[in-house]
Each structure stands twice: as structure tokens, then as C-alpha cells.
């Protein structure tokens, strides 16, 4: 089996329009969940969200490009370009065929879809925009990157709600590890601030009326966010041979299904995903130093996740440090795993753990050190990142510091 190096990362989120700005805000513990630009009419029951305000489409794309590219696909492309630029990888000759692109997205091009329905049902106009289909397809970002960089290997998109990106990165990791491809772009993207989708989340009653406070006793739900993350994964030898700078390594991936309930989480599913990820990595629980938690801030998720963590790490001297960066960039649904993977790689690289902000007081049912409110220097070598989706689908990635 080949080792899998991470040679580039890209990020667009409420924290910033690129990796550097996002990381600096994450370390500063800045909550970028703010009042929604459009409060809705009548106003949404929740008025906070993590909008990627620095991101400007016109700075990255021509007007012609924007005809075919929805916001989520744009952000996926921009994060992909950043990751590729950092990696210095050039897709020439054989590498074009031996590179994969695997992305995650839960809802795809929601804006174009809603615009089509608006025309059809509100304006009684049956002439829906002709590019609605290619704009809304969840693989639009993956396909754009394939076209832009001439990448001709396995290219596809996974949609498993909030686990989409971890499933995508995990699949890409396995393809590189097994030698099916030499490199892969892996990540995910989501643009959630479309009226119909926000109304649907409102009706689910899981969105907090204030910025989310994961693991805090007074937490009242999640905060929605938008953004994209991308990693360049590369066969270790290939990366070394071309003199690439290796930022980190993916060493394991585990997934499971709760088979319990459509929306209520269960401890056993996440527990199994974490255990299988560690087994896939060939490491023991005691070797894990940091967990980038799913940590949505809903009463149910955080208690369940804390219990699952205690089950996996029980009997060890230490339960790893845990933080939920969603407290700063919101819950980006299908992009969550990708954005959090990038932040986890940076944590290992810099030896600093981004905090769980908005934390007021501990919940005895979530007995973890959640690195409250302030980033913490820590000598961390191995970290895991969890995502758990509606539908009971869990996916955990294991990362290792470069070296």
C-alpha cells in the first residue's frame, strides 16, 4: 500500500476567502457566524449564519464562466485552484489520466433550482432557464476542475448529507493508497443560503437562534455555513520525486451506518466509524492527540459524540483534545468534512489547535476538553476528523503530521 501525502490545501469559508485568512481567523478564535444579509420575509426564525462574505465570484471567473457555474461549484473550483497552486503539481501526460477528483456536496446548485421553481410556480412561466441542469448537478465543481486542469481519471461526487466530504476524501485516499491513481483532488463544497433551503432548515427546528455553541451547556442548535475545501492527495513517492512540500498525510478512513433512525444519532455508529478508521490506519486509540469533532451544537449530536469518543478512547491514559471549528465557520453540510480536514492538516502542521468558540460553560454530559474559546499550542502528531450525517451515516478520517 502506498503512503498518501497531502501536498496542497484550499479553502473558501466564512473564515476567509483562502487558506491563509481562514487559518488566521481560526487561530484568533473569531466567530464568523453573523447576522444574515437577507433576513427573509417573513424573517427566518434564525437570523445567524456563516456566509463566505470575502468571496467574490468576479475576482475568480469571467462573466461567461459564471453563466454555467453556481456558487457552490465556483467555491469548489477556487478551493481546488488554491490547493493545486500550493501543491505545485502539474497535470501533464500520464498524470492527467492517473489523477482522480472526488468531491462532496449535499444539495448541489440550490439557487438555480429554486430560481427555476420560482419562474415555474410563482410566475407561471414554464420556460425554465436552459442551463439549470448543468448548474444544479452536484458534480458541477468536480467537472469544472476536470475541464480546467485536463484531469481525466475517475471523477465523481458523493452526496451523503453532512458526511459527503469525508466520504469523498476517504474514497480518494483509498484510490491513491491502492495505487489506482497517483494523485487526487478531494474535498467538498456547499452554498446553503437559498431561501427554500433555509425555510426547510427552519422547519427542522435544529438551527440555533444565536451563533452555535458546540459542547456548551446552553447550546441550542447548529448554525448553517457555506464554503468549500480541497486537498491534493498524492502518492508519497510521487510527491517526493518531484520535490513537493508535504503538508501532512492521511493514514486511515472508516465509515459506518447507524441503522437506527433517520435523524436521531446513535453512539454505536460513530464509535464504529472511529474504530474502523484507527484500524485502517493501523494505530491504537492512545496515539490520537486531537479530534476535530463533528460538534454541530445540537443538544443531541454533542452528547452522542462525547459518549462515542469516551467509548473509543476508554482505558487510555488520555482522551484526546477535541474542538469544533463549526463554532467559527458554521455547519457547511456537504463541505463540512473538507473544510475541517484542511483545518486539521493545518493544526498538525503548526502544532496549534483551533478552539471551540462561543463556549460559556461545560455540559457534564459532554465531558471533554474542547479547547474552549482560545487556540492552544499542542504537540500533536495524529488527529482524526469526524462527520456524522442525517440518515445515520458516519465517516472518520485519520491524519498524521508530515515527517
Amino acid at each position: 500500500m502506498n503512503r498518501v501525502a497531502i501536498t496542497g490545501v484550499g479553502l473558501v469559508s466564512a473564515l476567509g476567502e483562502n487558506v491563509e485568512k481562514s487559518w488566521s481567523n481560526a487561530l484568533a478564535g473569531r466567530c464568523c457566524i453573523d447576522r444574515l444579509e437577507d433576513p427573509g420575509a417573513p424573517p427566518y426564525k434564525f437570523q445567524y449564519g456563516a456566509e463566505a462574505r470575502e468571496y467574490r465570484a468576479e475576482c475568480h471567473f469571467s462573466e461567461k464562466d459564471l453563466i454555467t457555474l453556481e456558487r457552490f461549484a465556483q467555491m469548489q473550483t477556487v478551493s481546488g485552484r488554491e490547493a493545486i497552486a500550493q501543491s505545485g503539481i502539474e497535470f501533464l501526460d500520464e498524470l492527467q489520466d492517473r489523477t482522480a477528483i472526488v468531491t462532496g456536496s449535499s444539495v448541489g446548485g440550490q439557487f438555480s433550482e429554486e430560481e427555476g421553481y420560482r419562474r415555474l410556480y410563482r410566475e407561471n412561466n414554464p420556460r425554465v432557464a436552459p442551463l439549470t441542469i448543468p448548474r444544479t448537478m452536484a458534480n458541477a465543481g468536480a467537472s469544472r476542475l476536470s475541464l480546467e486542469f485536463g484531469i481525466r481519471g475517475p471523477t465523481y461526487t458523493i452526496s451523503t448529507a453532512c458526511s459527503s466530504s469525508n466520504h469523498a476524501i476517504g474514497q480518494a485516499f483509498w484510490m491513491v493508497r491502492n495505487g489506482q491513481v497517483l494523485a487526487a483532488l478531494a474535498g467538498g463544497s456547499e452554498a446553503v443560503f437559498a431561501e427554500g433551503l433555509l425555510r426547510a432548515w427552519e422547519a427542522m427546528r435544529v438551527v440555533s437562534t444565536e451563533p452555535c455553541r458546540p459542547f456548551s451547556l446552553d447550546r441550542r442548535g447548529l448554525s448553517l455555513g457555506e464554503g468549500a475545501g480541497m486537498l491534493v492527495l498524492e502518492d508519497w513517492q510521487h510527491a517526493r520525486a518531484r520535490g513537493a512540500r508535504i503538508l501532512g498525510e492521511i493514514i486511515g478512513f472508516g465509515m459506518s451506518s447507524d441503522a437506527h433512525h433517520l435523524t436521531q444519532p446513535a453512539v454505536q455508529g460513530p464509535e464504529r466509524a472511529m474504530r474502523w478508521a484507527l484500524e485502517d490506519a493501523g494505530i491504537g486509540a492512545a496515539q490520537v492527540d486531537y479530534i476535530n469533532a463533528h460538534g454541530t451544537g445540537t443538544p443531541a449530536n454533542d452528547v452522542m459524540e462525547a459518549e462515542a469518543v469516551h467509548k473509543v478512547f476508554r482505558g487510555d491514559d488520555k482522551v484526546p483534545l477535541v474542538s469544533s471549528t463549526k463554532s467559527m465557520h458554521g455547519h457547511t453540510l456537504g463541505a463540512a468534512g473538507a473544510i475541517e480536514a484542511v483545518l486539521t492538516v493545518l493544526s498538525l502542521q503548526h502544532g496549534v489547535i483551533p478552539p471551540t468558540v462561543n463556549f460559556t460553560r461545560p455540559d457534564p454530559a459532554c465531558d471533554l476538553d474542547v479547547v474552549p474559546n482560545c487556540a492552544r499550542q499542542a504537540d500533536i502528531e495524529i488527529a482524526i476528523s469526524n462527520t456524522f450525517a442525517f440518515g445515520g451515516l458516519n465517516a472518520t478520517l485519520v491524519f498524521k503530521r508530515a515527517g
Partner: protein
Amino acid sequence: MPGNAETNDLGSHVIRVIAQTQRMPPNSISIDNTFDELKIDSLDGINIVFALENEFGINIPDESVQTMKSVRETVEGIQRLLAEKQSAAASPGAG
């Protein structure tokens, strides 16, 4: 008593909404049932609350939802919210 009759009317009305939402025969639901007994879970609950809001033209806040663990508690909660709505409409500042 008129109060009871009103409650009963409201009770059967709420039961009808629950039955319709859950695709259950109304006579399988009693005012004394808890939602656990009816195998109605939190996801079903979201659906029921949404239907009740539509039916009675009220907003059922999360705090009220948390007190509704049985059909009776739901009926009482709705009765309270309807009364609040009425008194808000009758108050001089309203409208």
C-alpha cells in the same frame, strides 16, 4: 361544562391532525396516550408541530414543543397558545 366541551373539541381536533400527519386511524389515538406509546418520535414530532401550526394559525415555539410529550400536553399547549393569540388580538395595542 363549557370549558371541558371546548377542550374536548380541541382534543379531537388535535387528534385528527396527529392522525392525518401520521397516517393513523384517529380512533387509535387517545387523549391519554404519550407520544412514546404511539411510537411517535422527534422527527414525527417536527412534522406534527408543523401541521398543528398550519391548522390553528399559531406559532409553536421550541420551548412549548419540549413540554408536549403526550396528546393531552399537546392539547393544553395549543389551548394556551390560542388563548395568548386571542388576548393579543383583543388588546388595545394590537394590530
